[in-house]
């Protein structure tokens, strides 16, 4: 999938505390480092740990002026698969656009469950991060898959921004493990 309109738009569905905002901000920083224009903001509802949340991300080659929420996304990311039961995550997605889900299920299973004709890309972000990092960190691991599918920024830009933001906080070793997990999600089929 390539940039096909002026502004590439993403919606993240997650639960409060799962780090969707962090994920969107890392992608935003990565895009800025490539000289692109960005906008990232949460849907400003009541924020409670565990409640469903929406986070919006826009990336463009020209300045972004609009402040309206994203209603016609080019890709939708679902960080918590239990949301597939309760939230209409495919709203605004057509058959050429991508749904990326953190799940162990197959693409066919997810498509069938949602009765969705578009492209579904499952990735076991929980599994990958447990295996490599030793903790469930699906929000950053899934970045690898998002970059692979959308090609909105380069993988190196994301890992470099991750390192810049997190190395001091979590230490060099942990940071390297997280980056390895992001790279694995990028390569995962």
């Amino acid at each position: 999938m390539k940039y096909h309109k002026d502004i590439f738009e993403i919606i993240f569905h997650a639960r409060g505390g799962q780090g969707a905002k962090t994920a969107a901000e890392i992608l935003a920083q990565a895009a800025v480092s490539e000289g692109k224009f960005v906008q990232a903001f949460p849907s400003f509802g009541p924020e409670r740990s565990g409640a469903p949340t929406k986070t919006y991300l826009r990336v463009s080659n020209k300045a972004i002026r609009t402040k309206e929420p994203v209603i016609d996304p080019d890709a939708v990311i679902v960080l918590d698969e239990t949301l597939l039961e309760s939230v209409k995550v495919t709203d605004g997605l057509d058959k050429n656009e991508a749904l990326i889900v953190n799940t162990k299920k197959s693409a066919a299973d997810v498509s069938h469950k949602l009765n969705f004709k578009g492209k579904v890309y499952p990735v076991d972000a929980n599994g990958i991060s447990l295996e490599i990092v030793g903790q469930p960190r699906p929000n950053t691991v899934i970045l690898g898959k998002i970059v692979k599918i959308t090609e909105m920024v380069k993988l190196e830009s994301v890992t470099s921004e991750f390192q810049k933001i997190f190395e001091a906080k979590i230490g060099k070793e942990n940071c390297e493990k997280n980056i390895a997990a992001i790279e694995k999600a990028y390569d995962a089929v």
Partner: protein
Amino acid sequence: MFKKDKTKLALTGGAAAALALKQIEPDVMPVYPITPQTPIIETYAKFCADGEAKTEMIEVESEHSAMSAAVGASAAGARTVTATSSQGLALMNEILYIASGMRLPIMMLVSARALSAPLNIHGDHSDVMGARDAGWIQIFCENTQEVYDKTIIGMKLAEAAKLPVMVIMDGFNTSHSVENLEVLDEKIVKKFLGEYRPEKHLLDVENPVTFGALALQNVYFEFKIDQEEAMWKAAKEYARIAEEYGKISGRKCGIFEKYKTKDAEKILILAGSTAGTAKDAVDDLRKKGEKTGLLKIELFRPFPYEKMAEALKNAKEIIVMDRALSSGSNAPLYSEIISSLYQIQDTKYKIQSVVYGLGGRDVFKKQIEDVVMGKIKSNYLT
């Protein structure tokens, strides 16, 4: 390939304000947290804790105390800033008038938010409109970049005009949105502002003065006239400082922004973050052959009546979008536009008032286009 540049960042409006403050490095910052302003003081407190800024931060027990401490610090001769939102600004109200009456150059960032009741923490302009008669200069920002730029401009303006300044961003829409930001080198910012040397201050023991003395029937009126004259003069000061800032930053800030208004038959007028969405709406409408323009309010107090009248003189239809009510009266910005038009003898305009976005209600480009096309008959864009 784009060359990495440390002056090009992606930050929220709140973080951009804190970064501008770090470069200003005020002497004193009394603070009390309130959503959606808290990220500003939280980020700034971290700069101080990490030794990146040397401001004396004073944690107080309420916004009334925050503004009281700001008045004390500023009267003592310190470069003083604070930040607030909503109920916090309402609670400061009494002291806002004292700050302006004592001609204290306090700069305050406001992350504008709805007022209770019913309880709502989201963006609108009810709080700052409630403070519009308090003698403070009020400057609205559209986006993160303007928040950064106008925080610096606002500080210099306060000291030049000897009046307090509010720099206003839309709560959440701007304060919590990550957007591109270009920043100046800290040395350039410090040089632009210069060292703050108050003409008179309380710690100048060689030249003792009284601030806020008793002024009865014989002189109170003259004090107020002087203050009012200073306020009107501040418009020119603002324009001069914004132009000077433009020279060092390459970015234009002004009294208002005219977006495609030159040949516009219909002109939309509004303030704050919705201006971005409105510019996209203007472009779409022009593609459909509608000669539309946007006039974005930047300086709201003092209000530029004459310049506004001049800017609107060729319009046939004017739509004023307010993000606040003035209960029992016309919406605040609409009132000002009506007053501006009164200065033009030939009043041939069709003018409409539309209130939008109260309590953080989303506004879509399509809705703004519907307003311009006369499809919304109500005064409320819900």
